[in-house]
């Protein structure tokens, strides 16, 4: 791993199944992540991906590239556009720094409405 390395883009089809199965697997039972009627009642267009899943997919994006033995030290994300069903979530990333055995990877996950998630992942280098 070197500073400037770019992680190949990875696109995930956002299906209701992905949103619901990951919400339940992260033990997040908020209705906006599994019940469209209630989500719309709260003013949302549809159900949407929960934050624990955004974090988990960022983790997967980086470790699928860096290798399964990579130790993840931290994931810091800022949330933007919601990830709704029928959209696509496309991740991109670049290694921005390596210091004291820790690499900092800048990551972005974009949907059609804009950036769903922007942040950094720190991993053992």
């Amino acid at each position, binding site marked *: 791993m070197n500073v400037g390395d770019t992680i190949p883009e990875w696109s995930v089809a956002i299906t209701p199944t*992905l949103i619901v*199965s*990951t919400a*339940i*697997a*992260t*033990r*997040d*039972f908020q209705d906006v992540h599994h019940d469209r009627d*209630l989500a*719309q*009642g*709260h*003013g949302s267009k549809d159900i949407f991906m929960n*934050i*624990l*899943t*955004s*974090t*988990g*997919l*960022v*983790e*997967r994006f980086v*470790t*699928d590239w860096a290798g*399964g*033995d990579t*130790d*993840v*030290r*931290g*994931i*810091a*994300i*800022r*949330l933007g556009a919601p990830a709704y069903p029928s959209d696509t979530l496309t991740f991109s990333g670049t290694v921005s720094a390596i210091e004291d055995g820790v690499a900092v990877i800048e990551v972005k996950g974009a949907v059609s409405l804009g950036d769903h998630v922007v942040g950094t992942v*720190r991993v053992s280098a």
Partner: protein
Amino acid sequence: MAEAERIKAFGEAAEREARDPVNQPTINNWVEAMGNTNPRWQGGEAPPSMAQVWTMYGLGGRPPADDPLHAMMKVLTDAGYTAVLGTNCEQTYERTLKVGEQVRVTTALDSVVGPKTTGMGVGYFVTSRNTWYVDAPDGQREVVARMLFRVLKFVPRVSTDGDSA
């Protein structure tokens, strides 16, 4: 906001146990849903970002009365800031959790900033800190993960039936 100072003074509060110890079936559900095929998560370790999963309330759980984030959210809800949106989540991991470990979490209110005019409406940014612990064999508690979590608690610009109900 005076209420924020009062609740910040709770410090690191509302310590509670995960419902279950770190376990393989819950890890399996998570890796299947995420499509994470790393063999490491079949060998006795849990994925780092699952740290928060173990202490989620689940369907039946409710925050304890002394939970600082819950208390602050209630103050703002009662003041008319009814809507909530997660804006930042910063997790750090000291190590991976191991199958069989029992995790505990504490919550502290870090800051309340506002009122601010945002694209979503007028609201307060509420930042909390969680710390996850495991009891070490020597009886000391070991920090295994930390999280800074920020939400915008706001007055929706356009009220909907669901929000006003």
